[in-house]
């Protein structure tokens, strides 16, 4: 099939439609607007629903209703909007309802800025809402994957009866690349949902979509049975891409748009004779713990490269479990790091591998000359004295 040139946001929208999504509820926010605009244009032509809700809160609750009614349904937003959806996501988790939530991240906290960021890693993988639950999180790193991952997310969500999130960022959403659009699924082939609220026809017991349990024992049973599902997901659904990891001494870990910068740095390191490799998590929840653990058997150091002040690095540390230093390099505020900066961090990781200590490089400190004092509380105290 011929490739077409598309923006990431539009490719994701078309991918979702081809995955059988006919219901979209959203609220305008930059930098995801093209996604909603694409849906507004396409849905009426194919018998689908595009509805602009009065708020992010309302949009996610419309998703809850449509999901309970048994259809493939999605919403998309950007960081501040996803915060607002947190309540609804918690209810979707609690009622075991599948859906797709797209977060085209911008930088924060607060209103922050509209440039790309990965500052919502914690929110996505740890606490998309109150309570004790998870959503599946997929991280594309190209316009092609923006188009492809909607189908993956819907399939996983339906199979495990839980919300799935695509965590992209303003860079992936806004950039254009040639993309081969995925095959269109036949709506008749979508998985059946015998639990859906479709009306009893007076032929069956009523169905209830609900996250409430008045008895503590009932609630513990519900949460624990979900926990069993999470265990199965962690055991079977970890996905990542590994490049030159087998003999790597420095293993760079990066997801989404940051992984493309990290790969440039890894390639540059190899050209200079440094054995660097890249692990690119594709599922952020479940985290590809097994791949990181395996690499920790031979690596001298890890380096997490992120568009934040260091969030995923904690998952790398959990998986490496003290076997070697796990360092961090990142930019935030919407600034996209340069591969040359990441290369410096790779070199430093190798130099200091034997120290046994983690370090982090943030731009403020690197401007001070990479003197080894960065990230140390006393250095900050001296600078500000």
């Amino acid at each position, binding site marked *: 099939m011929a490739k077409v040139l598309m923006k990431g946001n539009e490719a994701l929208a078309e991918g979702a439609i081809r995955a059988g999504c006919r219901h979209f509820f959203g609220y305008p926010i930059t930098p995801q607007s093209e996604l909603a605009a694409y849906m507004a244009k396409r849905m009426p032509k194919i018998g689908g629903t595009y509805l602009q809700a009065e708020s992010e809160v309302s949009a996610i609750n419309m998703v809850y*209703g449509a999901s309970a009614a048994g259809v493939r349904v999605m919403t998309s937003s950007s960081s501040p909007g996803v915060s607002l959806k947190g309540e609804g996501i918690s209810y979707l988790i609690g009622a075991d309802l599948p859906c797709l939530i797209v977060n085209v991240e911008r930088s924060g906290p607060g209103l922050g800025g509209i440039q790309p960021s990965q500052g919502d890693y914690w929110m996505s993988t740890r606490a998309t809402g109150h309570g004790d639950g998870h959503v599946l999180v997929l991280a594309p790193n190209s316009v092609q994957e923006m188009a492809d991952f909607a189908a993956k997310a819907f399939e996983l969500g339906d199979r495990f009866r839980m919300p799935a999130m695509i965590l992209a960022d303003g860079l992936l959403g806004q950039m254009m690349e040639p993309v081969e659009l995925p095959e269109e699924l036949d709506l008749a082939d979508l998985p059946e949902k015998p639990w859906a609220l479709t009306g009893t026809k007076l032929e069956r017991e009523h169905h209830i979509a609900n996250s409430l349990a008045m008895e503590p024992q009932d609630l513990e049973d519900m949460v624990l049975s979900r926990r069993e599902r999470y265990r199965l997901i962690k055991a079977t659904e970890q996905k990542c891409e590994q490049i030159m990891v087998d003999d790597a001494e420095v293993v760079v870990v990066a997801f989404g748009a940051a992984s493309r910068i990290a790969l440039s740095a890894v390639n540059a390191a190899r050209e200079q004779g440094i054995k660097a490799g890249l692990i690119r998590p594709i599922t952020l929840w479940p985290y590809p713990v097994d791949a990181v653990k395996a690499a920790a058997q031979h690596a001298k150091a890890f380096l997490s490269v992120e568009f934040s002040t260091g969030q995923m690095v904690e998952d790398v540390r959990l998986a490496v479990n003290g076997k070697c230093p796990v360092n961090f390099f990142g930019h935030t505020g919407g600034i996209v790091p340069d591969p040359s900066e990441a290369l410096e961090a790779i070199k430093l990781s190798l130099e200091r591998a034997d120290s046994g200590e983690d370090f982090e490089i943030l731009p403020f400190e690197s401007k001070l000359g990479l003197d080894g004092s960065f990230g140390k509380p006393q250095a900050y105290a001296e600078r500000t004295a």
Partner: protein
Amino acid sequence: MATFDKQKYLYKRPHALADVVTNYCPGCTHGIVQRLVCEVLDELDIEGDTIGVCPVGCSVTAYDFYNCDMAQAAHGRAPAVATGIKRALPDKVVFTYQGDGDFASIGTAESIHIAARGEKVTTIFINNAIYGMTGGQMAPTSLPGQVTQTSPYGRDVAYSGYPIRVCEMMQSLDGVAFMERVTVDTPSHIRKAKKAIKKAFQYQLEGLGFSLIEVVATCPTNWGMTPQAAFKWMEENMIPYYPLGNFVDVKAEATEEAK
């Protein structure tokens, strides 16, 4: 002489009403209103094609009291959940059942916009001027001077603001097809309430737009009164502030215009 084969039930549990014990307090009007909704579902023969949405509040577990399919919504979000269901299944009948805190406070945006969109959904809105389930706090519809747990010296409107008259506020929205304020304190009022609820569902079936029935109700437990005293207090204090009657009826307006 009457024969047995001519005997028939004049009064029985509606099919749509589940045969379970509810969690409502003695003298609470929720039971009456839910029964009326179920009678209407039976009479219109729509139980098997109906999906209800229950709120957060005293009727939070109402999903167990109806035999139709039910969704439980986050506090105030029932109109959004109902919208999602209706857009996914436009041929089904969808209703929400919400209290004053749910509909007129935390869910105000959802409430106004479901009406503005003219969503083909019916809302039963219970206004008892207090938060029942959390133990009697001031509601958006608590009356001036009304003593509650969080207005212990009486609602001071200069400090806490004024109650919201939902029907009057929503009357200007073009998406509303039918809106009436009723109560259920006497047999004749109960009959009127049922007639209004039935009309609200019929207007939905005819695709005319959003329909809302506000029921002025009591909360003997949190008002600290006997059921009889509560009805008296309601009649003397609430009905003057929340006058009963029809606010929107697009069919009547059309007839009026034709004249």
